[in-house]
C-alpha cells in the first residue's frame, strides 16, 4: 500500500482522536465538591454531599441539562481533609484528575476555601462557596463566587438585630458583650468589625475578648472570664462541635446556661443534629446562631424531600446551600449551552435571577458583584427551641418568633 493511500486513513484516524467527543460531553457533566470528608470537619462535608446528591438527583430526574441534550450531572467528591495543606493538595488533585469539571463547590472551612481557590483560580474553574471569610472574595479573583454574606457583613447586620431583640425582650439596651472565638478565618472575619469599633459604636463594652486555637482541651478559664464579668450576652464563635460542647456544658456548669447569659454563635455547626446528640436539648434551649442559609419559610418541599432522602432531622446551611449551588450550576449550564468551565463562569457572572436557584438562598436573588459576592445576601438567625433549630430572623424567612431571656 502506497503512502498516498495511507494518508487519508491516518488523517481520519487522527481526526477521530483529536476531535472532541460530543456524545460523551453531552451525556455527562462533572461538577466537583471539595470539602472535609475526614478529620474534625468531616460531618460538615458529609452534609454538603447530601445536599449536592439530592440536587443532582432532582436535576437528573427532571431531564438533566436541557441545553446539552439532557446531559446528566455527575458529582465528583474530593476530601479536603483536616488542614489547609491537605485541602490545597486535594484541589490540585481535583484539577489534575478531572480536567473536564465545569465547576466546583467547597471547601466549607474558610481557611480551606482560601487555599483551594488559589489552585482553582489558576485553571479558571468557577467555585461556589458558602464559606464566610471576607478574604475569599477580596483578592481580585474572577472565578470564586460567595453565596453567603461575608463574615464582616454578617457581623455588621447581626449586631444591631441582636441589640434590638434584647431591648424588645428586656426593656433596656444591652450594655456589654463578651466574645470567645477560635482563630480560624470565618469567626475572625465575623468578629473583626465588632472588635474594631462595632460594639463601641452601639454603646456597649467588651469586657471579655478571647481567641483560642481549636480544639480546646478544656473551657474553664474562658467561661470563668464570662462568669466574673457577667456580660449581657456572649458571642461564642468556635467552629468545631467538640469546642461547642465544652463551652456550652461549662456555661451550664457555671450557672450561666439556659439563657442566664444569652449565647449567640456563628455558623451551621451550632444547629447541627450532632450537637443535639452530644448535648441534649436542655442545654441548647435558646442558643442562637448566625448563619448564611437555613431551612426557611416557603421551603417545605425541599426540607421534606431532604429529610426523606437522607434521614437527617432537618436541613442545615451546609446542605441547602450546596443544593442551591448545584442549581446555580444547572442554570449556568442551561445559559452557556456548552460544558465549558469558562463559559459556565461567564454565565454565573451574568446571572441575575429571583427564580430557580434563588429560591434556595436568603434574599431570593442570585446576582454576584464584581468581587464575586452575592448581591442581597442576608444573614439568617437560627434559635434552638424545644430541641429544634428554627429560623427566627429575618422575619420574611422566620418560622418562629425569637426568644430572648428576660432575666
Amino acid at each position, binding site marked *: 500500500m502506497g503512502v498516498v493511500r495511507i494518508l487519508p486513513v491516518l488523517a481520519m484516524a487522527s481526526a477521530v482522536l483529536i476531535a472532541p467527543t460530543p456524545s460523551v460531553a453531552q451525556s455527562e457533566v462533572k461538577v466537583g465538591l471539595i470539602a472535609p470528608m475526614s478529620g474534625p470537619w468531616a460531618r460538615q462535608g458529609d452534609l454538603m454531599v447530601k445536599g449536592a446528591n439530592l440536587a443532582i438527583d432532582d436535576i437528573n430526574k427532571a431531564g438533566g441539562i436541557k441545553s446539552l441534550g439532557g446531559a446528566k450531572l455527575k458529582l465528583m467528591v474530593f476530601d479536603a481533609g483536616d488542614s489547609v495543606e491537605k485541602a490545597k493538595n486535594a484541589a490540585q488533585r481535583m484539577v489534575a484528575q478531572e480536567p473536564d469539571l465545569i465547576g466546583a463547590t467547597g471547601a466549607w472551612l474558610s481557611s480551606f476555601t482560601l487555599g483551594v481557590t488559589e489552585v482553582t483560580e489558576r485553571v479558571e474553574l468557577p467555585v461556589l462557596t458558602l464559606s464566610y471569610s471576607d478574604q475569599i472574595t477580596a483578592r481580585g479573583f474572577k472565578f470564586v463566587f460567595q453565596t453567603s454574606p461575608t463574615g464582616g457583613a454578617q457581623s455588621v447586620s447581626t449586631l444591631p438585630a441582636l441589640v434590638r431583640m434584647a431591648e424588645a425582650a428586656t426593656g433596656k439596651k444591652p450594655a456589654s458583650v463578651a466574645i470567645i472565638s477560635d482563630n480560624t478565618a470565618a469567626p475572625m472575619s465575623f468578629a473583626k468589625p465588632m472588635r474594631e469599633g462595632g460594639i463601641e459604636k452601639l454603646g456597649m463594652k467588651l469586657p471579655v475578648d478571647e481567641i*483560642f*486555637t481549636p480544639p480546646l*482541651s478544656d473551657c474553664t478559664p474562658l467561661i*470563668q472570664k464570662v462568669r466574673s464579668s457577667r456580660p449581657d450576652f456572649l458571642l461564642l464563635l468556635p467552629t468545631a462541635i467538640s469546642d461547642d460542647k465544652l463551652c456550652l456544658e461549662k456555661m451550664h456548669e457555671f450557672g450561666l446556661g439556659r439563657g442566664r447569659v444569652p449565647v449567640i454563635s456563628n455558623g451551621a455547626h451550632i444547629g447541627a443534629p450532632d450537637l443535639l446528640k452530644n448535648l441534649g436539648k436542655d442545654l441548647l434551649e435558646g442558643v442562637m446562631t448566625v448563619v448564611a442559609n437555613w431551612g426557611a419559610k416557603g421551603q417545605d418541599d425541599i426540607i421534606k424531600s431532604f429529610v426523606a432522602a437522607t434521614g437527617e432531622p432537618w436541613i442545615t446551611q451546609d446542605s441547602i446551600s450546596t443544593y442551591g449551588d448545584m442549581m446555580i450550576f444547572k442554570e449556568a449550564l442551561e445559559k452557556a449551552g456548552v460544558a465549558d468551565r469558562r463559559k459556565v463562569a461567564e454565565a454565573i457572572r451574568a446571572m441575575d435571577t429571583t427564580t430557580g436557584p434563588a429560591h434556595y438562598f436568603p434574599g431570593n436573588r442570585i446576582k454576584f458583584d464584581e468581587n464575586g459576592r452575592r448581591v442581597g445576601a442576608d444573614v439568617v438567625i437560627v434559635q434552638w427551641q424545644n430541641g429544634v433549630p428554627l429560623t427566627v430572623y429575618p422575619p420574611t424567612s422566620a418560622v418562629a418568633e425569637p426568644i430572648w431571656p428576660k432575666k
Partner: protein
Amino acid sequence: MTDWQWFIIDILQAFAAGLLVGGTYGLMCVGLGIIFGVMRVVNFAHGDFMMLGMYAAYYLVTGFGVLAFLGPYVAPIVGALLAGPIVFAIGWVLHRFLIANVTGARVVSAEAEGHYAQIILTLGIALVLANGGLILFGSLPISVQTPLSRESWAIGEVLLNKARTVSFFIAVAVAILLYMFLTRTSLGKALRAAADNPIAAAYVGVDVDRAHRLAFGLGVGITAIAGGLIASSQSFQPYIGFDFVIVMYAGVVLGGMGSILGAFWGGLTIGLVQQMSTLVLPYQLQNTAIFVVFLLIIFFRPQGMFGRVWERT
C-alpha cells in the same frame, strides 16, 4: 464581689482546671511512658489507641448500652475502665504480629535500635486506625453522655467539674497501681528488665518477647482508660488521637525517660501550664506555653524532672 476577689477566683479556677485536666494527661503519659520511656519503642499510633479507648467506652455506655443498667453516673466510669482491657487485647495482638518484628532483642544491633522501622510501622498503624475508625465509626463527633460532665462540686466559689474530678482520682489510682505492679511484682520487674537490656534479661530466663508484648498492651490499655475518661467530657471522632500524641510525648520527656511517676508528673505539669498560662498570656498561646516550659525544663534538667541522669532526652 470585688475585682480582686474575682481575680483570685480566676487563678484558683484555672489551677483546678489544670490539675484535673493534667491528671488525665498524666495517665495518658504513663501509658506512653511504658512504651516509649521504658521500652524505647517509638509509637506514633499511641493517640489512636486512645481513640479506640474512647470508642470502646462510648459503645459500652451509650452506643450498645451494655452498661446502661449502671445508670448515667457509674456507667461512664466503668466503661472507661473496661476500655483498658479491650484495647490491651488489641495492643497485644498488634504487637504479636507486627510490632514485635521491629522491637526487642531482634533489633538491638539494628541501625538506631530499630527506631526507623518503628516510626514507619507505627505511623502506618496510626493511619490505618484513624481511617479504619472513620469507616467503622463514621465522622460524627460523639461523646459518652453523662450528667457528670455538666455538674460540679463547689469549694467556696471554685467549681470542680464532676467528670474531670472523678477522672483525676481514677487516673491517680491507676497510675499508683501500675507503679506498684512494675516495682513490686516479679512480672513487673521482668518487664522492666526486658525493656532495659533485652539480651541480659533473656540470659536470666525472662521471655523478652512476651514481656514486651505485655508492656505494649499495658501501655496502650492504660492510655485507653485515659481516653475513656476524656470521652465523658469531650466529643471525639476518629482523628482525635493526633491532638493528644504531641502532648503525650512532651509529658513523657518532661517527666524523664524511663520514669513512670515522672511521666505522670509530666502530664500533670502540661495540664497545669496549659490552663494557667491563660491567666497571663493570650489563650492562643496555650500550647506554645507548654513547649516554652518544656524547653526550659529540658534546658535546666536535660534528664527531665524524674529521669535518670544518664538517660538524657
